[in-house]
């Protein structure tokens, strides 16, 4: 068995595990189990975000590897990062930035800006604005202006229970709503960039 078939690499957001891509998966599993056992005392019962690299593994294989970790150690796997992130995962990763929670309405003339994501528990009234480098979630009606990903991150999204804004901005994209759409209750909706356009779809499928 090769000595370095499994390599652990510390990253600022967790542990990256580089897997050998030549051996069979069963061989790899054994090597992985040995490696995990030897590292058991090092990690103890840490909360770890883990990502796999170096080898294509399917969901089933990934689950097996995670099971090995939880069987042999008391590490708590808090987040799984794959090499190939799906778009939705990318979007939600932005949530890992510090999120500001605001309880109450944002009224006309008021502005809330933050470097992370913003969650509003209340309404954003006409004339109010929310500007975030991350995502914007409004547990209420969005009737004012919201700007997500304000420093150019087009992966960000804006979601609201009732999305009827004067204007939506995501990164450098701007869209405004004609009067016909104004105040129309469509249920919870999410806006994000798709094919170079701000795209709104229902959150309830």
């Amino acid at each position, binding site marked *: 068995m090769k000595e370095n078939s499994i390599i652990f690499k510390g990253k600022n957001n967790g542990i990256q595990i580089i897997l050998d891509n030549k051996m069979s998966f069963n061989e790899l599993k054994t090597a992985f189990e040995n490696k995990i056992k030897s590292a058991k005392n090092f990690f103890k019962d840490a909360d770890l975000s883990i990502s796999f690299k170096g080898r294509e593994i399917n969901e089933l294989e990934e689950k097996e590897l995670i099971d090995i970790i939880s069987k042999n150690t008391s590490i708590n796997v808090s987040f799984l990062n794959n090499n190939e992130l799906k778009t939705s995962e990318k979007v939600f990763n932005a949530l890992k930035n510090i999120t500001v929670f605001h309880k109450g309405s944002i009224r006309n003339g008021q502005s809330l800006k933050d470097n992370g994501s913003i969650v509003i528990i209340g309404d954003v*009234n006409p004339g109010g604005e929310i500007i975030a480098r991350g995502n914007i979630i409004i547990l209420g009606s969005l009737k004012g202006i919201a700007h997500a990903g304000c420093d150019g991150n087009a992966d960000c999204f804006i979601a609201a229970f009732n999305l009827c804004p004067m204007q939506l901005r995501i990164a450098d994209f701007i869209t405004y709503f004609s009067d016909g759409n104004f105040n129309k209750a469509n249920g919870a909706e999410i806006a994000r960039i798709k094919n170079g356009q701000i795209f709104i779809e229902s959150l309830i499928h």
Partner: protein
Amino acid sequence: MSEVIVITSGKGGVGKTTTSANLGTGLAMEGKKVAMIDADIGLRNLDVIMGLENRIVYDLIDVVEGKCRLKQALIRDKRFENLFLMPAAQTKDKDSISPEQMTKLCETLKEDFDYIIIDCPAGIERGFKNAIAGADKAVVVTTPEVSAVRDADRIIGLLEANNLSRPTLILNRIRVDMVRKGDMMAMEDVTEILAIDILGIVPDDESIVVSANKGEPAVTDDNSKAGTAYRNITQRILGNNVPLMDLDVDNGFLKKLKRLFKAN
């Protein structure tokens, strides 16, 4: 326990002064000792609406500048002896008084009066800041128009930022016929946006114009619909539970008959 209530709106012409005059008079009718302060320095109106214009000798600025005693500037109403008006100066501007001076004035008045009603000027600048400085409670007046509601929303935000949380709302000049046709915002549409408790609704009423011209607040007129609305609001300020006015009521003979049958 005396209370300082500021009547504000942001937008001009929605009925702040009319509301101040009617609430002040309404509270005086209930036997309370009331002082009304006109904070609209340079554009005073409350004295005209109250019909006390010709009695002004000293004003608010004279008091804070020490040119007269507080009692000298307070004008006693011609109908109610427990109702007083502190008129604004007409030849000065809003910078002639500071929020601190206003707070001090309110504190002094609180010793002698049950209620102090402040008529706030339009806008969000110095005049507004002066008017709200000494207030314990705020009443926001709006009409069912988009622009007035926008401004009311802005004002509510500013009030909350200045520790006047939970202001209440008076929706003025409602026209039931237009609401019914969908041409005017209904009370529900307004409260949905502003999300504050409603203190009262006042129907659009010609008698308000007549009473303003005569210098007699409509609240004293038993036949005025708006007057009834203001009497109800007065009761709510006093802490009594009065249901919101049913503006749909048509007092035609046939309608009355119909209602009678419906009730049975």
